[in-house]
């Protein structure tokens, strides 16, 4: 892999963000709204419930983690959609660029934009609601890593979907996190779910983050093997997503879809 082509994809996104408030605002606004909304909900629950659970840590913390995951995913798809919106596939893929370089460029963009979102959330959650985020200590690293890796996997998967199904399928991509959230136990333990939903949840890496987070916040320690399973699953998902993207790209080159993307589907 060469560095320049990877940098090209990231630099293009930087150029666009620099001059486009409509791109910057969603990176900040939605996560800020979520933190404020769930911050007040958590604070309210703390005053009415006498369970001894600190909802700021368990609920607001979970929202923060979940939003971080969605920002990673959207950071990746956002960079891909730029090529969709500007009908730029021929220009980009007629260069020596490798698919692995292209995907790495998208991931770099996802890292940068999701970090901005994370910082905004951290500042708001600690400053307004006193979220003891760093009390999780070094566990933050595996938690964020799992969510980060899975966000990349889903971002690449979503990009592959849009490449195959055409620009209108963007509307199918946005609800993916909402579709997954009931299964991964963002707000409740997996044990709340019926057996089949729990089984699905165990296949999704974020469930290991949320189960462990609740356990640590409740003073029960964490499961190292659970976190390792989460990381391993997320890495596997990245491989699967990259394989899917590459296969769909090859299909698009074979069928003529890439060269005639405006047609949305060929044959």
């Amino acid at each position: 892999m060469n560095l320049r082509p990877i940098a090209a994809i990231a630099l293009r996104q930087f150029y666009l963000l620099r001059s486009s408030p409509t791109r910057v605002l969603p990176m900040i606004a939605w996560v800020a709204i979520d933190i404020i909304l769930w911050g007040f909900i958590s604070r309210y629950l703390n005053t009415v419930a006498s369970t001894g659970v600190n909802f700021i840590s368990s609920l607001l913390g979970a929202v923060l983690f979940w939003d971080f995951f969605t920002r990673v995913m959207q950071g990746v798809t956002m960079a891909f959609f730029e090529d969709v919106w500007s009908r730029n596939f021929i220009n980009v893929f007629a260069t020596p660029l490798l698919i692995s370089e292209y995907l790495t460029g998208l991931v770099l963009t996802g890292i940068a934009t999701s970090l901005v979102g994370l910082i905004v959330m951290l500042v708001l959650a600690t400053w307004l609601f006193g979220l003891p985020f760093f009390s999780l200590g070094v566990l933050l690293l595996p938690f964020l890593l799992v969510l980060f890796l899975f966000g990349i996997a889903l971002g690449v998967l979503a990009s592959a979907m849009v490449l195959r199904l055409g620009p209108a399928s963007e509307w199918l991509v946005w609800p993916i996190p909402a579709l997954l959230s009931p299964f991964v136990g963002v707000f409740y333990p997996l044990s709340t779910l019926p057996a089949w939903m729990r089984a699905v949840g165990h296949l999704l890496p974020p469930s290991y983050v949320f189960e462990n987070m609740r356990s640590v916040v409740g003073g029960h320690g964490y499961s190292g093997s659970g976190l390792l399973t989460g990381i391993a699953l997320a890495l596997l998902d990245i491989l699967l997503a990259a394989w899917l993207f590459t296969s769909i790209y090859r299909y698009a080159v074979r069928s003529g879809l890439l060269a005639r993307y405006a047609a949305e589907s060929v044959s």
Partner: protein
Amino acid sequence: MNVPALAGAGHAGLPIAGVATPGVAADYALRADGLRKNYGSTVAVDGISFGVRAGEIVGLLGPNGAGKTTTINMVLGVLQPSAGDIRIEGVELARHRSRALAHTNFTAVYAALPGNLTVYQNLRFFSLLYDVPAGVSRIEQLLDEFDLRRLRNTRSGVLSSGEQTRLALAKAMVNEPRLLLLDEPTASLDPSAADLIRSRIRAMAVRTDCGILWTSHNMYEVEEICDRVLFLSRGRILLEGDPRSLPHAHGASSLEELFIRLAREPLGSAPAAAAAPAPKRDAPGAAP
């Protein structure tokens, strides 16, 4: 150099259009052999073979839907041929995609550069994509060469057609290509702008010894700029030769007349193509 007037058109045993006879050394920017593209039962390109030498400008002519853009897309690696072989500077595209495309570039009206980036940003983006080492100084040079300095910070989406063409050409030169594919580069230009662009490209071909495949529906332009033309119809090469001597050799008064005749001839009965022996032509790259 002797070039067969009759295109090989993929028939076994016939010479490949523009490919030198054995023993004659020639540097090929591009060689396509038995190139074919089917879409289901539609045959867009029907097993064509041709070459573009270094420093040579080859016109790819043919009626709408003949398969010109399809051919160019296959050479650009964004469309996989159903059959056949493409070599850029001797490098097999199917097997060494990146290496083959490193010194290839193109412009096409249907592939406008991202309109939300400025002229400079577009050139920077593509210089990095093409892995150009001294990208920034190369861009400064191109801004001057293509009169874009004053538009440097203008978003390319607001440029006029002529200005966009200049930007597209600057982008196409960013990696100092050895093979340039130009799909109707002057289609939306006024005659004076088109003339300027043609002389720029001609000068560039002479200076850098780059091979150029050029599609156009403007026969005057083709006569002026192309060293050789390939006439494509329904995915096949019907005729090939010097655009200045071809019409005469086939009993037409102009290239335009020859074009119209060939375009209306039913497939497979191209008497014009069967007539006349191979004309001698000027050396590739020679000024018209």
